[in-house]
């Protein structure tokens, strides 16, 4: 019944600090490491030139100032104190990493061009090539959105049909079991024959990769619904459509979400491959294009963008799941 304990218990014991200290200590350390990264960038002479040194130094220094300010302000703003305390060690480590990274590449050349790049090099890519990168992000998101949206919708509807209807299961299940394990990319040669444009073919490949796990998991979820729920529904006057829409589908939702998560990961993997085949834009195409010209800094910069987008979409799906499945035991 105590209200104070849960906040501390969610944090690993060694990382938990008593709340309400006068200064956020980790913030000071983070400010120091970020300042060090700024100093390394600005003061030491370059062995290898990557460009955007000044901008990088300014940004990192601003970060350092920010942490220093937060260290003194945050104890008074209770709501932010807990996440700041939790992530403090990460902020410190990121500062150290940036300093070491800049030092080992641009300043000493231990990690040589073109296979490695400095953080200033990545920043330079964003500064110089941002219009093209933005277009590529737009193209990739469009391809992913269409592919995943179509795949998940068709997979969901198909999964409900397979789980609910005996004739559907009889004819569909064997086909699904044969097609399911084949990696979606294996279909690439044939899809280019069947679809009028490479874009359509790419959408199909992404849809296939994301749709199949959604279909398999949804159908098993619908098939596994507790029969007693149907008895209750029938007894209370439910028609078949009510049994499907109000009992089978909500009951199978936890399975469906597992399928959606699997489909999401597969769709990212396939997206890049699909974009490497005859597209004009897109993050996968950009990586392929820059690799051919040994633009590894551009490749790394794109990988950073990709990981942020993918992690963001995964996080988004988690948020949706937590809202939709809030009825599950242990969620509240």
């Amino acid at each position, binding site marked *: 019944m105590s209200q104070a304990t849960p906040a501390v218990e969610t944090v690993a014991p060694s990382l938990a600090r008593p709340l309400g200290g006068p200064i956020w200590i980790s913030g000071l350390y983070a400010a120091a490491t970020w300042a060090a990264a700024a100093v390394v960038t600005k003061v030491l002479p370059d062995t290898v030139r990557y460009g955007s040194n000044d901008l990088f130094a300014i940004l990192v220094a601003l970060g350092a100032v920010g942490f220093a300010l937060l260290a003194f302000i945050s104890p008074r703003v209770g709501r932010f104190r807990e996440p700041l305390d939790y992530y403090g060690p990460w902020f410190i480590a990121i500062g150290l990493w940036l300093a070491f990274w800049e030092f080992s590449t641009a300043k000493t050349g231990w990690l040589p061009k073109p296979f490695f790049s400095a953080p200033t090099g990545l920043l330079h890519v964003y500064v110089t090539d941002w219009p093209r990168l933005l277009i590529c992000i737009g193209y990739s998101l469009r391809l992913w959105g269409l592919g995943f949206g179509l795949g998940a919708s068709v997979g969901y509807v198909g999964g409900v049909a397979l789980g609910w209807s005996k004739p559907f299961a009889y004819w569909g299940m064997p086909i699904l079991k044969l097609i399911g394990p084949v990696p979606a990319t294996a279909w690439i040669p044939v899809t280019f024959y069947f679809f009028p444009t490479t874009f359509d073919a790419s959408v199909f490949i992404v849809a296939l990769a994301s749709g199949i796990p959604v279909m398999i998991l949804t159908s098993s979820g619908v098939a596994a619904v*507790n029969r*007693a*729920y149907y*008895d*209750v*529904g*029938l*007894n*209370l*006057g*439910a*028609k078949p459509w*009510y049994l499907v829409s*109000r*009992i089978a589908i*909500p*009951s199978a*939702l936890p399975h469906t979400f597992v399928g959606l998560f699997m489909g999401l990961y597969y769709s990212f993997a396939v997206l890049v491959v699909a974009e490497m085949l005859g597209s004009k834009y897109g993050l996968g195409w950009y990586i392929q294009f820059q690799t051919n010209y040994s633009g590894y800094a551009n490749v790394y910069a794109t990988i950073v963008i990709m990981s942020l987008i993918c992690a963001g979409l995964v996080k988004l799906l988690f948020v949706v799941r937590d809202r939709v499945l809030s*009825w*599950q*035991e242990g969620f*509240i």
Partner: protein
Amino acid sequence: MAAQATARHVEAPIASSVAIDVHDLSHSFRLHGSTLPVLDSINLRVGSGEFIALLGPSGCGKSTLLRLISGLDQPTAGTITADGAPILGPDPSRILVFQDPTLFPWTSVWKNVATGLETRGVLKHHRGRVDDALELVGLADFARAYPHQLSGGMAQRASLARALVNDPALLLLDEPLGKLDSLTRLTLQAELLSLWRDKAFTAILVTHDVEEAVLLSSRVIVLSERPARIKAEFAVDLPYPRRRDNPVLIALRRQILGTLGLEA
């Protein structure tokens, strides 16, 4: 005019209780290619508004009998009628309450209770009945809760509310208190009784608890081992509410246990 009148008084055409006639009823399951007889020539008449209890060894087919009366399953042979009309399928006027509350976990208690009105498309005009049913079982404050947040007794109360919201003429109770702790069970026995006396529906209770049977019902039917036949019948001619320590009840309880082969 007529349509309006029925929409406003959906409960009016439904009789508050119903007489059930079970005639020469036999039932068997198909199991791995062989047939397993479960019920054998059951003849039973339950008067309108009567509360009867079914006792018998476990696995004898009591629950099967309830499912057949509810219309969820069709018998292999024989007929069941409700006020003379054959029972051909499930109907919200005859509601089966299971041992497990079987509330839908994905929706609120209120929505669960509203199920029977929603399936018939009358929920919009009868939202108040859901609140009334929740009030009746003492769960008004838990309307927004999810089933997993309820205790076992509360969940079973919600399940009763889900049945009662339809104003059933017949309540089929399949060991509804079987999984509850003994104190909750005593409370719910009293509540069940007062609901029955208040609403005057017909009730058929399957139970393993002889004391519960004699305390609640006006007639106790004892079934044999599978395939079940009616082995004995005991009238419980005592006014309600009954006291557990009433010597007549205690004697009756001993007699019934003897019929079940358990000397007390």
